[in-house]
């Protein structure tokens, strides 16, 4: 859920969602035994080619990985400190490739198709009275509100910076949480106004 759906009609968009998810599953299992540097690099290269096949907009979506780079940095440094530079490089390349591959699926698969594809996995939850309809609503809400919450945080940062000249502080966390909670009230209201999570009586 790092990146968002990219409208389009490429080969990847047309591929069935379930096939994409199963391929991702298969690839993530298959890479485990191949613990070499050249293989990991090759895999990352293949993933980048997949993005390139979507055109210029596709390549731009590679940026999705940017927020994770510091984490990759730490993983690499830990390996260097432990004296295993090669293993560090393999770990980082492999992580990048897998994250980007998963992200590739989220940018080329419509949320609804994705939900339909994984719906059978939610069937056991029916025992607890959770409908798959509610699950897909929940997923939609997450995808929808991540950017909204990021915008809220940015506006708090702006207000803070306007008076302190510093752009970030732990002090923003409490107001951010309050804004988020207030927002859930508004969204719940909007949902209720159109019949609530279960809809109108059929």
């Amino acid at each position: 859920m790092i990146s968002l759906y990219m409208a389009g009609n490429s080969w990847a968009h047309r591929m069935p969602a379930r096939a994409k998810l199963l391929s991702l599953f298969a690839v993530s299992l298959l890479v485990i035994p191949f613990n070499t540097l050249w293989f990991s690099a090759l895999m990352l290269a293949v993933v980048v080619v997949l993005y390139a096949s979507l055109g210029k907009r596709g390549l731009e979506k590679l940026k999705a990985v940017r927020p994770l780079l510091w984490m990759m940095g730490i993983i690499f440094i830990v390996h260097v400190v432990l004296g295993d530079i090669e293993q560090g490089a393999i770990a980082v390349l492999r992580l990048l490739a897998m994250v980007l591959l998963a992200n590739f699926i989220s940018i080329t698969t419509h949320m609804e198709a994705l939900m339909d594809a994984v719906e059978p996995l939610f069937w056991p939850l029916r025992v607890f009275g959770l409908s798959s309809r509610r699950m897909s609503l929940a997923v939609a809400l997450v995808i929808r509100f991540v950017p909204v919450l990021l915008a809220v945080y940015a506006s708090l940062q702006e207000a803070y910076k306007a008076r302190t000249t510093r752009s970030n502080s732990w002090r923003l966390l409490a107001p951010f949480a309050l804004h988020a909670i207030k927002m859930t009230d508004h969204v719940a209201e909007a949902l209720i106004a159109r019949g609530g999570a279960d809809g109108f009586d059929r």
Partner: protein
Amino acid sequence: MSDILKTISFDHVSIERNGSAIISDVSATLSEQRIGIIGRNGSGKSTLVRSLNGLLPISGGTLRVHGVSSEEGPKRLARVTGFVFQNPDHQLIFPTALEELSFGLRQIGVGKREAKDQGFALLKDHGIEQLAERPVHELSEGQKQLICILAVLIMEPKLLVLDEPFSSLDLRTRAALRRKLDALEQQIVFVSHELDALNDYDKVLWIEEGQVKLSGKPGDVIPAYQRHELFGADFHFAGAAVS
């Protein structure tokens, strides 16, 4: 007499929020097609119109909206009354415009494929089919609010309530959206601080301290409201104002 199926009637309606009365003993019959609601922040405007959709339960009296009584429960009211909120970011629940529109239809029992087709058709009617698959957070404020309005209209409400829906929009976008509203056949209740926008309306209600202070033609009510608010008693920021 006016047709009860096209009328809103408040009969001694009171509404409480967190234990205090926000609306007290309001009686009014609204059978006109275009109704404006004006008043200060915190006067009870939003509370009053929320009751039309069943978002807030009334604590006293009877409310009837296009043949549906408040006693039948909030869901029945929500079915006849579409509600457009102030901030589209709070109303748009889905990541894309098409999903937002088809959601409303799914809510009333329309099948998945058909909901999608109808949603797309409505976007096309308004010349914005190219927005169908775009993530809503990338849309302009005006586009977002139009999607909100269409997402409500697609459920074919008999009454459309809008609570200051244009307050973050520029002049041109407001005018364009207002033209869309003017063309609708639904009864409209419009809460607004843009008094000019209500000049062509059939009736304006001025709400103050939870009651109807004045109602009638915009030409009578709006100037009275302006005189009262601009040349009346001094304004104190320390005064109670909870909105």
